[in-house]
């Protein structure tokens, strides 16, 4: 079975390595500052004990007050998983660092989040819409999105 690493264990390890990056945690998830996503992911990937070499998915959830970025990571050698989250404030121009430099597999997923949820990824090499066409008004997966009148 893939073990889900306890939130407090990861929070302590990450906080030791990058002071001031962890905001909160619970039994399974860790919330970090949105601007330190890339550093935290680099640490989780390169640290020998954690070794999260495989990125499962990048998701975004719209909670109206903030966007929550959710990263599911897994370590193939140790068979454990980590759920990393970040609360991203602001509806106009929410931005988080891109992790495409670490995992090629994040490319399309980040483009999808940008397209449908409107979260921007700084440092993404090719950040443009993926499912919808250029010039589409708005981001349809936001909770406050309204279909334009026909």
């Amino acid at each position, binding site marked *: 079975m893939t073990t889900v690493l306890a939130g407090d264990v990861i929070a302590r390890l990450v906080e030791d390595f990058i002071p001031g990056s962890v905001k909160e945690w619970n039994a399974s998830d860790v919330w970090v500052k949105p601007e330190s996503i890339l550093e935290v992911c680099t640490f989780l990937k390169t640290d020998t004990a954690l070794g999260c070499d*495989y*990125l*499962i*998915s990048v998701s975004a959830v719209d909670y109206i007050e903030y966007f929550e970025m959710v990263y599911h990571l897994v370590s193939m050698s140790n068979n454990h998983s980590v759920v990393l989250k970040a609360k991203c404030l602001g509806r106009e121009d929410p931005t988080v660092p891109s992790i495409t430099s670490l995992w090629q597999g994040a490319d*399309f997923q980040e483009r999808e989040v940008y397209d449908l949820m409107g979260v921007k990824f700084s440092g993404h090499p090719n950040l443009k819409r993926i499912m919808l066409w250029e010039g589409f008004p708005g981001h*349809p997966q936001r909770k406050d999105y309204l279909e334009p009148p026909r």
Partner: protein
Amino acid sequence: MPIRTEPVTINLGPQHPSTHGVFRMRITFDGEIILDVEPVFGYLHRGSEKLAEERTYTQVITLTDRLDYVSSMSNNLAYVLAVEKLAGINPPERAMYIRVIVAELQRIVSHLVATGFFLNDLGALATPLMYCFREREKILDLFEMLCGARITLSYMRVGGVFQDAPPDFWHSLRDFLNYMPGYIDEYETLITGNEIMLIRTKGTGILSGETAINSSISGPILRASGVNWDLRKTDPYDVYDRVDFDVPQGTVGDNYDRYLTRVAEMRQSLRIIEQCVDQIEEGPVRAEVPALVRPPIGDAYGHVEGPKGELGFYIVSDGSIAPYRFKIRSPSLINLSALRGMLLGSKLADMIVTFGSMDINMGEVDR
């Protein structure tokens, strides 16, 4: 006098028989060599994730059928597992066995379709495909006995399956298990040693294990690159921890390895089904679950080893009858991450073969 040449950019698709749906690639060629590839998606985008936010947890099952429409059972299974994890529901034993049996049948269907169309892309037009579809038809007949549908099945429910299998199903399944290995032998006789097949697929479209992991590749493509990672072994769900099976792997990660891995997986699926049929016992097939499931506030990620790779559903609940957020981790889309690297520097004809061996499904890529 030297001939002056310049790169040419062409569009492959969205209407092209080898793109398996409506997929488009903008490809830049230098003569016959590929210089750049840019996949263009979205022609089949239906907004499944958004649609799910307006449906009850049971109604969403019908949406999952339409993601990867050649493996509806696996999609159903991944979704109900995620909801069960979120709501803390345990399905009865018999339901778990039936789920594993139908999911493995579905894997055989998907691999048959993949192999058939792969051969189609190689230029063996329609004949191998019809051989593969002959057995696919038998499995669809089995599914019809279970739930009346053949493609969009919606057979699974949160907490079990829709209904118990009729007695006829078990007889037909036994028959199927008896004759299917012979048919797989037949494919292998026709295809595996075929000279054209070997020339076209060996050493083309190579994907190293390291790149595969970095690109979040999953499923048979990952294993064909020599990575031993199968969620049925590493994170077993339902009753996979009670059955014995091997995880076929490739060595080089070329198109031929991907074909071999799929064929070997079909044989393993038959092994799993046989053991499940021996182990299954009488009992209920559905837990006591209210018609309108209301999972507690929270989130859960449920995943299965689908025929095309890791299919996952990340569901956020706000305590109501509909999911607050419904995210699909679609293997077909993410497996395309490595496509560009696999194609650069190869020839036009190899591109069609490599793309065929990826076995993507546009219903799942665009959602």
